[in-house]
């Protein structure tokens, strides 16, 4: 593995934190590249990224849905 690749390599455990943090703060440039490289090759984290966004939408709908009861 090239030194560059190694430098940007992150585990799913680390990436899941970045996926959540990205909803709260702008990521730094190194984290952004690391996240993108990881998502390119990792289906589980790509799904997690979608799951986090879905959960946010679901919380919004919960309120609206309950409003319509």
């Amino acid at each position: 593995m090239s030194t560059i690749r190694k430098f940007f390599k992150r585990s799913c455990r680390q990436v899941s934190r970045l996926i959540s943090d990205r909803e709260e703060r702008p990521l730094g440039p190194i984290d952004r590249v690391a996240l993108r490289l990881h998502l390119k090759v990792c289906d589980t984290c790509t799904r997690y990224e979608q799951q986090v966004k879905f959960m946010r939408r679901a919380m919004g709908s919960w309120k609206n849905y309950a409003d319509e009861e």
Partner: protein
Amino acid sequence: MSDFARQVEVLRPQLLRFARAQLRNDAWAEDAVSDTVLAALEKPQSFAGGSQLKTWLVGILKHKLIDQLRRHTREIASSPDDDSELEDLVFVPDGHFRDRDQDWGNPEGALHERQFFVVLQACVDHLPPTQARVFMAREWLELDAKEICKEMSLSSTNLWVLLHRARLRLRECLQARWFAVAAAKD
């Protein structure tokens, strides 16, 4: 009791559900809802009637919930969640997700099912208290990170960790109680 008062009373249990989910303390939740109902009954004229009564009440409730969080900051801060082992449960030692096959397909359909929201609420209620308060404040009260840190006396890093853990937990819970069940039915 006036007609208006009766309509407000009918909505009390729903307001209480939200208040409990946000505050995780029955007495505080009762106080927030009572304050809401009082405020509503004192100023029925400010209910324009155009929006739904419940939407209007939820708008008042939000302020009362923030009041309660503010009032009880110290108690909340004095009992942080002990959830340091969560990540060792969700991830294997090499850093991969333990369960790599949680495919929710196209989950949007769930948002049209009443039962899904019952499960969602159960999953939120199942979070450790501080995670639940922070997550509800973020996603239900729709406060931004800065406001939550201020109202709950948290550092930003602390807040990010709490939201991260809440999301990991919710994913596990929704998978177990909804998506795995739905997949088994197909």
